[in-house]
């Protein structure tokens, strides 16, 4: 709704095309080649679960998609438009941080460790993006934030600071904070990995209800049951490449790749 608007949308893009697509994505840290040519698409309203062993590059992929780090090579397109770079005759040039900030508004990110702002109440955490990025007036932002907190079941905690909330509540506030910006796609980086087991359920419930409401979501997770129940498609990441992509039933019951079978035997 608030994204670029029709004038910036290339005519070649239609709602059936991927909202977010990634081609030939590469990323290295020092001598470690973390992403080795990742190809990834997600369509409007789709939920994709990304599984894989630690260090396989799945979190790095999310950070690149969220424009928090530059890719070494490859391209990321949001609604058909290339993001993160300015295309010049000589090739693609990374955008300066201030320009990247504008493009990040359309991509929401939920972190493993919540990263709520400890000096702000739950409500103010959710409001900050609205007031300081979108320039929405305080009162209007407060109303939107309260509505979003209600959606994650935390309107009664609006005036509490993060240190006064449980991990599960903090992560739900973090989801509200990302959601209130009305992003085209919401990225989850192991959203339940830092939580006590008894708090995982409330976060997954919120995520499932978002999925049911048609939110486009990429979820890096170790929650196999969530992936099976909620995702439209499950992806296995290993050593910086995507090994297998299939519907949950296919992925779990009839995996095509030896690597997938081996991974599933460890997590089941």
């Amino acid at each position, binding site marked *: 709704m608030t994204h670029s608007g029709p004038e910036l949308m290339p005519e070649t893009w239609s709602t059936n095309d991927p909202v977010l697509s990634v081609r030939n994505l590469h990323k290295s840290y020092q001598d470690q080649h973390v992403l080795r040519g990742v190809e990834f698409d997600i369509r409007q309203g789709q939920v994709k679960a990304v599984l894989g062993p630690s260090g396989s590059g799945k979190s790095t992929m999310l950070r690149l998609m969220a424009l928090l780090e530059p890719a070494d090579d490859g391209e990321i397109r949001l609604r058909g438009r290339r993001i993160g770079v300015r295309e010049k005759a000589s090739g693609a040039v990374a955008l300066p*941080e201030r320009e990247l*900030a*504008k493009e990040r508004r359309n991509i929401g990110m939920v972190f493993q460790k919540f990263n709520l702002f400890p000096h702000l109440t739950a409500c103010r955490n959710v409001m*900050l993006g609205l007031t300081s*990025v979108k320039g929405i007036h305080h009162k209007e932002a407060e109303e939107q934030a309260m509505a979003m907190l209600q959606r994650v079941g935390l309107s009664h*905690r*609006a*005036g509490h600071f993060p240190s006064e909330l449980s991990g599960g509540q903090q992560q739900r506030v973090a989801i509200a904070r990302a959601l209130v*910006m009305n992003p085209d796609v919401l990225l989850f980086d192991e959203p339940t990995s830092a939580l006590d087991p008894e708090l995982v359920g409330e976060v997954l419930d919120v995520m499932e209800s978002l999925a049911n409401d048609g939110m486009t979501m990429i979820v890096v997770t170790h929650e196999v049951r969530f992936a099976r129940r909620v995702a439209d498609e499950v992806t296995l990441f290993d050593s910086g490449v995507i090994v297998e992509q299939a519907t949950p039933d296919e992925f779990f019951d009839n995996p095509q790749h030896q690597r997938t079978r081996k991974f599933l035997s460890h997590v089941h």
Partner: protein
Amino acid sequence: MEFDVNIFVQQLVNPSYLSGAFLSVAVAVLSLILATAIGFAVALGRTSRSRIAQGVAGIYTWFFRAIPALLVLLIIWNALPQLFPVLRQDWFSPFIAAFIGLGIVEAAFMAEIIRSALLSIDDGQALAGRALGMSPVKVMLKVVLPQAIRTALPPTGNEFIGLVKFSSLASVISLQELLTTAQVGVNITFRYAEYYAAAIVYYLIIVSLLTLLQSYVEKKFVWTSRSKSKKPSILEPVGQGVQS
């Protein structure tokens, strides 16, 4: 010679002590403000990715941590007016020279306090701000700085108190601050104990008030909803909401 309580009390209520105390505090406040402004810039330089900024900031800290504040005051008051005629005009008073000199020196120390406060903030904070689409300036002002201030407050309080006492150095450039006031009295009457005791009382009062101010400000940076029970609206829990 015995301690004459009458002289002591007389000096306590002597207006020149009060104005001396006021000058001391005023020099400390203004030099702290100047030091914080310069110190913030130096801290940004030291944490910057630019080699040049790092170098300039590093040299500043190195230089002004090494040079005694007294020498800096003497240079500003005596040497600089020789070099720059504009400083020979009337506006350039001992007061201005004192707060600029102390501020410049103090900035080197404030830079280190601010730098370590900035570094103490978890990387995930700036990351979350950037992910929301906040510009680098907004991330600094709305996310990092409010948290860094809390970390920087206690050591800054120390520096503030130190500055009140350092302001006595300005006696060498003939600023009539608190200690100079006592010294002038001593030179006339030779009643050392009474005049110095009055100065002690004033310093104790000043530092006690500053300590109270510091703990008041620090309480403002405790992030719990309970301590803010008087604040209305969203800082208060707003009753039972609907659970999904």
